[in-house]
C-alpha cells in the first residue's frame, strides 16, 4: 500500500551562487491539503517545479507514488506529469482556444478521443459553475472565472495530485474565498491531494490541514495547521506570518500583545464560528463549565464567506487545557494570537 503519495528527500537546488532549495524533506499523504508558505524568494516555486519535473534538483530524491522522478528520462516524465494538475497564479490560459478548448487540452495531450473530451469538459464546466461560458475566450472572463477554468483544466485528466502556485494571489478577497471553497469541496468530494503555495497565512488557515513554512530554501516548520494556530509555532518566520495576520487588530491591543506566555498573562484568541457553532452559546458554556471569562475585544462576520461565519477576538481570564479543548471543538481554526497582562 502506498502511504505517502509524495515524498521529498533531501532535495537541493542551486542557481549559480543562489541556493533555492536547501535539504528539503517532507511527505504528503493521499487526500491531504498541504499549504506551503514562505516569503518571496524562499524557494516555493522552485520546489513546485521540481515536483512535476520541470526543474531537476541537483541532489536528493522526489518520489511520486514510489517512483523517483529525478532520474526518469523525459519520455517517462511526461507520463508522470499527466498525473499532476497544476494551477497558476496568472492562470496561463490559451487565448487561441475557447474556455472548453482550454479544459480539453490536457486530454488532447493524453490522446483522449474528441467526444470523450467534450463530455469531460462539460462535466468540469459544471463542477466549476461555468457551463454558460464554454464558448467564450479566456480574455472575456473575470479573474475569478479564469482561475475556475484553470482549476477545471488542472482536474481534466483526473490527476492524483493538484499543485497550486499562488492560485489566489491575483484575486480579490471575496473571489479568493470562493476559489478556496471550490478547492476544499473538490478535496472532500474527490479525495484529491492538494499542495497549495501561498504567502498569505489566511489561505493556509482556511484550507490547509498541514503547513510547511519555507525560508531561504529550507523547510523551517512542518506541522498541523491547527497546532500552529494554537500557538505551537516553533520558528520565528512562522510567527512573523501569524503576526502579519493580526495586523487587523487594534493598535492598542497589538502594542501589548506578546507571542509567548508569561506569569499573569491572559491568552488572546481568535475564534471563528461557523453556522452550527453560532447556535451554541460558546462563551456562556466556557464561563459556566470551565470558569473562564471571555472579554470580547473585536467581533464581526468573517468577510465575504459563502457560509455564515462569525469571527471574534477574545481575551480569556486564564489558561486551562479543558477550556482550550472545548474552544477548539467549537472553532477548529482557533488561533492563539498572543498574551497580554491580565489586568489590562
Amino acid at each position, binding site marked *: 500500500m502506498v502511504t505517502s503519495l509524495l515524498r521529498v528527500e533531501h532535495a537541493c537546488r542551486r542557481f549559480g551562487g543562489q541556493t533555492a532549495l536547501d535539504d528539503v524533506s517532507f511527505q504528503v499523504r493521499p487526500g491531504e491539503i498541504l499549504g506551503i508558505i514562505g516569503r518571496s524568494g524562499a524557494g516555493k516555486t522552485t520546489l513546485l517545479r521540481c515536483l*512535476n519535473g*520541470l526543474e531537476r534538483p541537483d541532489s536528493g530524491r522526489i518520489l511520486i507514488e514510489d517512483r523517483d522522478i529525478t532520474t526518469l528520462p523525459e519520455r517517462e516524465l*511526461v*507520463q*508522470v*506529469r*499527466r498525473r*499532476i494538475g*497544476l494551477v*497558476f497564479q*496568472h492562470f*496561463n490560459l*490559451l*487565448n*487561441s*482556444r475557447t474556455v472548453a478548448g482550454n479544459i480539453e*487540452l*490536457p486530454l*488532447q*495531450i*493524453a490522446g483522449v478521443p474528441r467526444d470523450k473530451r467534450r463530455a469531460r469538459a462539460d462535466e468540469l464546466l459544471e463542477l466549476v459553475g461555468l457551463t454558460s461560458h464554454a464558448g467564450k475566450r479566456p480574455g472575456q472572463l473575470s479573474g475569478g472565472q479564469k482561475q475556475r477554468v484553470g482549476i477545471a483544466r488542472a482536474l481534466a*485528466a483526473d490527476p492524483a495530485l493538484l499543485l497550486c502556485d499562488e492560485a489566489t494571489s491575483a484575486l480579490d478577497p471575496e473571489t479568493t474565498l470562493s476559489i478556496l471553497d471550490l478547492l476544499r469541496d473538490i478535496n472532500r468530494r474527490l479525495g484529491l491531494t492538494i499542495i497549495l503555495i501561498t504567502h498569505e497565512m489566511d489561505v493556509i488557515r482556511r484550507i490547509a490541514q498541514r503547513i510547511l513554512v519555507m525560508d531561504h530554501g529550507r523547510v523551517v516548520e512542518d506541522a498541523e495547521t491547527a497546532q500552529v494556530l494554537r500557538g505551537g509555532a516553533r520558528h520565528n518566520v512562522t510567527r512573523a506570518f501569524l503576526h502579519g495576520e493580526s495586523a487587523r487588530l487594534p493598535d492598542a491591543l497589538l502594542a501589548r500583545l506578546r507571542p509567548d506566555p508569561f506569569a499573569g498573562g491572559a491568552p488572546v484568541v481568535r475564534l471563528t464560528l461557523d453556522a452550527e457553532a453560532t447556535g451554541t452559546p460558546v462563551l456562556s458554556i466556557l464561563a459556566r463549565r470551565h470558569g473562564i471569562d471571555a472579554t470580547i475585544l473585536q467581533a464581526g462576520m468573517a468577510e465575504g464567506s459563502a457560509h455564515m461565519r462569525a469571527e471574534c477576538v477574545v481575551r480569556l481570564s486564564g489558561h486551562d487545557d479543558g477550556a482550550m479543548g472545548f474552544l477548539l471543538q467549537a472553532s477548529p481554526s482557533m488561533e492563539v494570537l498572543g498574551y497580554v497582562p491580565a489586568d489590562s
Partner: protein
Amino acid sequence: MSRLILDLILHATVETMEMVLASGLIAVIGGLPLAILLIATAPGGILPLPAFSRALGLVIDAARAVPFMILLVLLIPVTRLVAGTALGTGAAIVPLSIAAVPYFARIAEVSLREVDRNLVDAVRAMGGTRWMVIRFVLLPEALPGLISGLTVTLVTLVGASAMAGVIGAGGLGDLAIRYGYQRFNTTIMLSVVAVLIALVTLMQAVGNGLARRLR
C-alpha cells in the same frame, strides 16, 4: 485607354500575383520551420542548442544582407538549374523565394518569441511533448502575428517582383520598364503604379482584417 493596353496590364498583374503568391507560399513553407528552429534552440527554448541557434541566425542574416539586385544576378546559374531558364515568371520565383525565406523567418521569429513563456511551461507541465508545445501553443498563439508578418512579406515581394522585371521576369515591373522607361509611355507607367498601389492596399487590408479577427 485602348483595349490592348488593358490586356497588357491585366496579363502583367496576373503574372505578378503568380510570382508573389508562389514565392510567398515558399517563404512560409521554408521560413516558418526555420523560425521555429531558431526559437526552440535559443537559450531557454524547448530544445536549447545555443551554438546551433547562433549559427543558424548568422546564415539567415547573411542571406538577408545581400541586396536583392545582386541576389538576382548571383542566382542566375541556380535559377537555370531549378527552372531550366533564367528568364520569365517561373524563373523569377527562384530568387524571390530565396530572398523571402530568410526574411519571413526573422519576422515569424519575432511573433513566436512574443508568445508567453508561461504558456509553454503550462503545456510542458501537462505532459505535453515538444511537438505539442509547437502545435498547441506556439503556432496558434502567434497566429495573428504570423498573418501580419506574412502580409508584410507579400507586400515586400510585390516590390521585389517588380525589380525582377530587370532580368525579364514578366509582370508589372517588366511592363513598366519596357513600355514606360524604354518607350516613354506615361499612360502605361502611371497605370502600372496605380495597379501596384491598389494591389498593396488590398493585401494589407485583407491581412489586417484576418489578423484582427484571429486576435
